[in-house]
């Protein structure tokens, strides 16, 4: 697409084909900053590209910031959890706002981020860092003591999460001290949280000039398996409360522009608990689902919300009105084999024949033995659905959990 020299010039940190496609077909100039394995592909397809390996921040970090500055780049956009601190470091140079780097570090560490949220008056569950297995056992006991459980009562579970990994990676649920032994030593340190009984959901919010421009609520049917947008009316009825929470969040974290992806619990009494927040696009193809449901390209929305040259008029015109403008409900389901030994992929006829079924990304099995699922989120491929009714969608996604895709 014809590039507009009066608009911003953005750098995409990390390789995402869908993001590149969005940038290519948008009026902003762009450059992809990605590891050198992407070079051949970019050259072949004339994609503007700068090689960079995103290891831990080091003394060469300024180098990429200056390279981008010389090229005239206005802002860097993180596409993955691992590039969030890079974007912070780079943007603090490009935009001459040193505090952006500190903000990014805050958003990368789940323990720090919870403290900050707590300081801002946002409700969080009980949490603590664990450095070894003993810490975990102690926390499990103390949480259950607090809940006035007697010896012999079933424990309430606790959740363990890596400090700096995206979404469900490294997420474990622990119920008994015995289970603690299954955690490999190299996973420490971890963040421990008490379990909140309630309804977990995620929010995607595009922010520009300190204001929310589009707020989506993604409903999870079962965490790690499925999600859909827009949510059911039962969840959407909290939209006003949720919006207030997000406003509090961006104020607490001092977020002026960009995109946040927090997770919350709403308990039975309607209280919101903050889980965590990420400063990058969500997993589980939520952007793709949004495009399917609303027709706007969520990555282009990302570019708009980061670009300092975006005008008020432009961004207002870009985003549709939440829920009412949706053409339908888009959902996806992550397949994990239910059997221990599988030989082939076989789409259940009931799935494929459902009018909501759209497409799937499942591939034939490479190995016959299925490794035991230790954490959330390692699905074998996604199935996409689209239809009119959020309740039908919810039940349909739930139903998929009982089906065999690999036999």
């Amino acid at each position, binding site marked *: 697409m014809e590039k507009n020299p009066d608009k911003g010039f953005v750098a995409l940190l990390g390789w995402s084909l869908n993001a590149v*496609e969005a940038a290519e077909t948008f009026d902003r100039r762009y450059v992809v900053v990605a590891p050198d394995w992407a070079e051949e592909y970019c050259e072949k397809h004339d994609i503007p590209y700068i090689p960079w390996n995103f290891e831990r921040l080091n003394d060469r970090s300024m180098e990429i910031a200056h390279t981008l500055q010389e090229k005239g780049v206005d802002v860097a956009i993180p596409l993955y959890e691992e590039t969030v601190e890079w974007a912070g470091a780079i943007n603090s140079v490009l935009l001459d706002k040193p505090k952006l780097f500190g903000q990014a570090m805050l958003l990368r560490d789940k323990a720090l981020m919870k403290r900050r949220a707590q300081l801002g008056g946002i409700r969080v569950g009980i949490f603590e860092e664990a450095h070894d297995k003993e810490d975990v056992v102690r926390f499990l006991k103390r949480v259950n003591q607090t809940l006035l459980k007697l010896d012999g009562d079933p424990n309430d579970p606790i959740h363990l999460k890596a400090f700096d990994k995206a979404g469900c990676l490294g997420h474990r649920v622990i119920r008994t001290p015995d289970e603690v032994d299954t955690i490999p030593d190299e996973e420490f340190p971890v963040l421990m949280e008490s379990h909140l009984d309630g309804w977990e959901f995620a929010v995607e919010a595009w922010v520009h000039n300190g204001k929310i421009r589009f707020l989506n609520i993604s409903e999870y049917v079962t965490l790690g398996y499925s999600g859909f947008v827009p949510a059911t009316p039962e969840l959407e009825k909290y939209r006003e409360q949720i919006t207030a929470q997000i406003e509090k969040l961006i104020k607490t974290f001092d977020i002026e522009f960009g995109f946040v992806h927090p997770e919350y619990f709403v308990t039975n009494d309607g209280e919101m608990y903050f889980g965590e927040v990420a400063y990058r696009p969500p997993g589980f193809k939520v952007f793709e689902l949004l495009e399917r449901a609303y027709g706007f390209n969520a990555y282009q929305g990302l570019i708009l919300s980061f670009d300092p040259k975006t005008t008020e008029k432009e961004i207002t015109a870009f985003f549709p009105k939440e829920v009412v403008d949706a053409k339908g409900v888009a959902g996806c389901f992550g397949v994990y084999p239910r059997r221990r030994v599988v030989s082939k992929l076989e789409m259940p006829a009931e799935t494929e024949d459902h009018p909501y079924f759209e497409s799937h990304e499942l591939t034939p099995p490479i190995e016959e033995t299925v490794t035991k699922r230790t954490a959330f989120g390692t699905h074998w491929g996604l199935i996409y659905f689209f239809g009119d009714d959020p309740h039908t969608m919810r039940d*349909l996604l739930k139903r998929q959990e009982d089906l065999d895709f690999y036999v």
Partner: protein
Amino acid sequence: MTSDVDDQAPGALLPGLLQRLDEAIEALDSAPDFSKPTRLRRVLDGAKRVLLQEGGPAAIEARAQAIEAAGTFTGSDWAWPEILIPSLSAHALGSHDADTVVIEALSDLRILAVARGAYLHPTLSAENAHHHLTQVLAINLQRLFMPPSEAERESQGRLAQLARALLGHLAERIGYEHIVDQLIEEIWRILQQRPIQTEPVKQMITQIAICQANPDIDLGSSGQGADRLVSSLFGPTQACREDPGVEIYRDRLERMDGVALQNEATGFARAMHDTGLVSPYHAVLLRHLADHGDHLLSEAMGLSSTGRDCLLCYSELVHALIDQAVFAETAQAIYGMALMLERGILYQPPVAPALWRQLSLPLSAWSRERLAIAFGETVPPRTRLLEGVLCMLGQPLGVGQGNNPTCQSARALSMWAYNDPDYLLQMVAWAARDDEIIIHFEGQPISSMASLSGVATTLPIDLDPVSLLVVPHLDRIYAEMGRRCIGREGDPHRWINPEFHGWWSGRGFRINVDVATGKLESLEDFLRHFYASYHPYFNGNQPLIHPQPIGIAATDSAARFIGWHAITLLRVSLDPQDVMRAYFYNPNNDSGQNWGDGVEVSTAGCGERFGESSLPFEEFASRLYIFHYDPLEHGELASVPQESLDRVIAMVHRTWGADRIPDEHLTLNLDSPATGTEA
């Protein structure tokens, strides 16, 4: 789950599915090339659902152009429908991978839209599309008429239904009752050209035979004409009429007397010469007859007095060849040998000794491996090669280039087999034994080992045994000769052809295209010289002596330029209707083509010999762009009639030369627009 889905009438889902598919196609279409793969899933999954609905295939057919334009086939073999091999469709449609089945279905429906004229395709003509689909249906006849087998259901599930629905739709649109008859006609048309490679034809005939033998399949009144084809393969004579298997047939032969054997021999010979196909039983008989005297051998090969004489003169050689080359799996060797004997080429002093060398030729490891990959290991590679050598010597015009851009090499092999058989045998020996061929170019040796790349970027596999081994070498040498001509003015074939093909390619050279601009150049002068060199009325009634390499501008049925193509001019003479025709060899596997603007290449019925193509002289001249001639035999330039040249020039201007007319011509036309193109 909502249950209202299940209650709906068949096909009721279709409008909704089509709307989704159209959206998916649009999303694919608007994506830049590099991210199309991420948009393809919705199209393939959407198309799959549509194809499973009643009326689905028709709906896809209607969207064929949009589906292709969006980039569904980009980056896959299906992006070039003109190179798709019909017989591979059976494998694709039987795949357990849904995407392979769906994309093959989309491609076939696209070809159907082209065949029916609804979609004017840039690289595929309606006629070729039609041929392609006839063959696709032929190769899938069983699938078309039979419910899925247990094995198919197990491996394919509902995909088996999808393939059937697709084939049913194709058959319906092409016309059910004509499929088998058209197929038979198609097989005969191909067989009339007597290709060396008969495997695809044999597969199609086998499919017909299977369908005929199956009581569940109602072919109606069609398929009557298949009897000769089926019997020539599976039961050409009294003693194997019911296809008893070669073991039983061998036992029967043991108990036959002279008269019975004579009957068998003539029966096989007739079937073989009728069709060009050889039954495996024929090989059993021939090996049996090797101990019963040369008279019966001659009968079994259907030899005329020329062939019989040759057989008797070289009896020991023929027996050795039968012993080593003729087996049930290599039965075509019999046809090759029979025609070779008929050609009398054994009387050329070097040929018989060269064949003895061939009989004991050790093959390199590489050659053995290539032959095993292409033909399997049921017979030893050297036996396979011997069969190939006999077939090429017997059917020089049956050489095909396969789906490879190596028309030059295929033409050279054919020309040598036709004109210089011992040289061909020398090439085979070098290639098969030494993995190297050296040809000299202007005094400098060119080695096929030292030359890195040829015209073809991958090693061809779809070739006869001789071509399989020799073509890669020739292709590299040909490309190297081209590289050595870089920087010379004009077309490199001027120098390459005589050195590559043989001394008999005339050193005089004419071309009617300016290489630098691609525009036509002194067209009339070019044509006048062609007439004076080759048209018997203007060259002193001199029949063509040696086959000559000729370059043509290949055009499709819409007379659009496709590319430059190498053929051999074999002879120019009057046909049975007293029309002056050019008879030529086309290395393209199927020579019966429609070249557009009324020019249809004939392969039978106008005095052609097996493997020859022919066109009336003027029509042939209208596609010509390069020829060689002997500058010392200039003919009668002045007596070539202007009207005839004008007609040819008009044809050139209407077809491949339409956008090659030099500017000054256009200016002239502007001055007097009413006089047409020839001012």
